[in-house]
């Protein structure tokens, strides 16, 4: 599986299992998953509900720990880290984008984007540096003008752009997007996917969790989950390109 000429993978999962105890029955949400994701990849993870893709996302996002197997993220074995260590990894290396945006209410777009910087231990930035960084990220998603708007004053697509800017602000190793277009109409979905595509073209590694085929087609590589296993891993042949991609 490991190609010696390929660059060091960003994500390397080896024989990963995650078992939940539901009363008397054991549920194997992940059952021996192994996968490498190289830097600059745009990976879509597909599968019906109960296939294990949410568990996969939780573990890749360092929100959860595997029952067995190893997970190496940018050369660090994160499968045995404790709560606080995982919080630091999430802050430093993972940029989350959620289906329901999850911005803080009554808080300006700029403050929402700044939030990960406040919890950062690595980069101790001055107020001015934070501001420059947060404004820069808002600019990347085309919302520089609306920095002082609260979520209630923004449309769904705009809110998701703020969420993308928030995920970008700590310059993470991977962007982890969980059904990012699930609450958006198709035109806005296309815009958001365009942002992910242009970020990917700049070199960002993107992992997209979705159950929609046409959304998965924006990615370069698709893996399909079923019953806790990877059942397909292929390159997207007829890749879609967002109309709004810059």
């Amino acid at each position, binding site marked *: 599986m490991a190609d010696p000429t390929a660059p060091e993978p960003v994500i390397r999962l080896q024989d990963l299992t995650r078992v939940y105890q539901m009363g008397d029955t054991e549920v194997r949400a992940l059952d021996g998953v192994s996968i490498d994701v190289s830097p600059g990849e745009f990976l879509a993870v597909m599968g019906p509900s109960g296939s294990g893709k949410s568990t996969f996302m939780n573990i890749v996002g360092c*929100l959860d720990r595997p029952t067995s197997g190893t997970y190496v993220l940018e050369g660090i074995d994160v499968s045995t880290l404790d*709560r606080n260590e995982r*919080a*630091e990894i999430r802050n430093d290396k993972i940029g989350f984008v959620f289906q329901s945006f999850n911005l*803080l*209410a009554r808080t300006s777009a700029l403050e929402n984007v700044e939030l990960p910087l406040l919890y950062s231990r690595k980069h101790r930035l001055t107020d001015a540096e934070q501001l420059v960084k947060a404004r820069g990220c808002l600019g990347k998603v085309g919302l520089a003008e609306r920095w002082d708007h609260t979520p209630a004053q923004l449309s769904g697509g705009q809110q998701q752009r703020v969420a993308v800017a928030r995920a970008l602000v*700590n310059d993470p190793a991977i962007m982890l997007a969980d059904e990012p277009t699930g609450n958006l109409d198709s035109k806005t979905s296309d815009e958001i996917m365009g942002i992910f595509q242009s970020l990917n073209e700049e070199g960002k590694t993107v992992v997209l969790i979705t159950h929609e085929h046409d959304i998965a087609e924006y990615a370069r590589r698709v893996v399909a989950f079923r019953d806790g296993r990877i059942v397909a891993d292929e390159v997207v042949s007829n890749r879609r390109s967002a109309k709004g991609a810059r």
Partner: protein
Amino acid sequence: MTKTTSILKVAFRAMGRNKMRSLLTALGIIIGVACVVATIGIGEGARVQAESQLQSLGTNFLMIFPGTTTSSGARSGWGSNSKLSEQDVDAIRQEVSSVSYVSASIRSVAQVVYGNQNWSTSIQGGEVDWPAIRSWNVAEGQFFTDADNRAAAKVCVLGRTVATTLFGDEDPVGKMIRIKNIPFRVVGVLEAKGGSMMGQDQDDTVIAPYQTVRKKIMGTTSVGMIMTAVSTPDLVLQAQEEISALLRQRHKINKAAGQEDDFMIRSQTEMLAQAEQQSRTMAVLLWSIAGVSLLVGGIGIMNIMLVSVTERTREIGVRMAIGAKGADIRAQFLVEAVVLAVAGGILGIGLGVGIQQAVAKFAGWPVLVSTSSVSLAFLFSALIGVTFGFYPALKASRLDPIEALRYE
């Protein structure tokens, strides 16, 4: 924006979001803190007043009263049949070394006349040590002498109120007045002393030599009471014991055989202790009210913080997902509880000071707004915020980020 300013900003935003709810939550703290501030202020004021009044009575002051007497099984009240004699006074003067000043004393009420003015006032008989014992000096003229006392001379010293009432602007020294129709020469006027603890005007009095009052005005042989003073407060207890022993010996009272004293000794320290006991009872009462409302207020804060943690589960999940550690979440909710409690505390301090001012205005009590009571109240409310905010904050910090993100 630093983490601290961000936490504070979020805390104030959370408080402002539900203004009515925050106010009601803080009400317990407001009442409790107002109670603490008012209690300390009123208590301090009362204590200072009581102390200054006792101080004005004369320092290191001991009074010996004739006590209850028992004849044929019938007990009569104090003073009804005085067993104190002039020989007792002399004995104390000569034998009790701890006592610096001694004066026999007697008291009556009589009409005093000067010209066409008359005034009914208290006539006190005393000896030359009287001004020293009461720490009450003559402002004009002079006090009468020991010779005046022995000769039962018809001289007197006026209290300030009597002097003003009878003489107006005139200088009373050297003038003749009539007490119970007997002519007396005024030799001096006392300094103004003000009201006593019981609210009497202490300046409404006339002092004359003990022997003069006893023989000429009252026509009695017994001593009303004996006033003594010691040089330092440490000697009060010793003097009390020595005087008791001496009087028991002289009156042939066998305490061991169960016989009761026929005299009572009252010291200033005793009266001070009594006054302190009273204000302490009052303070205990108010402190319990304060304690209960602070406890109830704290529980209210805990309750509302638990509601807030539930309401904001999703927000907690998001914060955790983007890198907040348990300690960050804990600090956030702890600060919110403290902000709520301290805001209540500040309102409570305002209310407490208002109550103090109202009490001062309408009840005429002296009130002290001390910085110590204000800072104590402030500290208290912050402490309550921490104590009762800790459990909700801990609960928030222990949420599972996956569950919290999924919470609807």
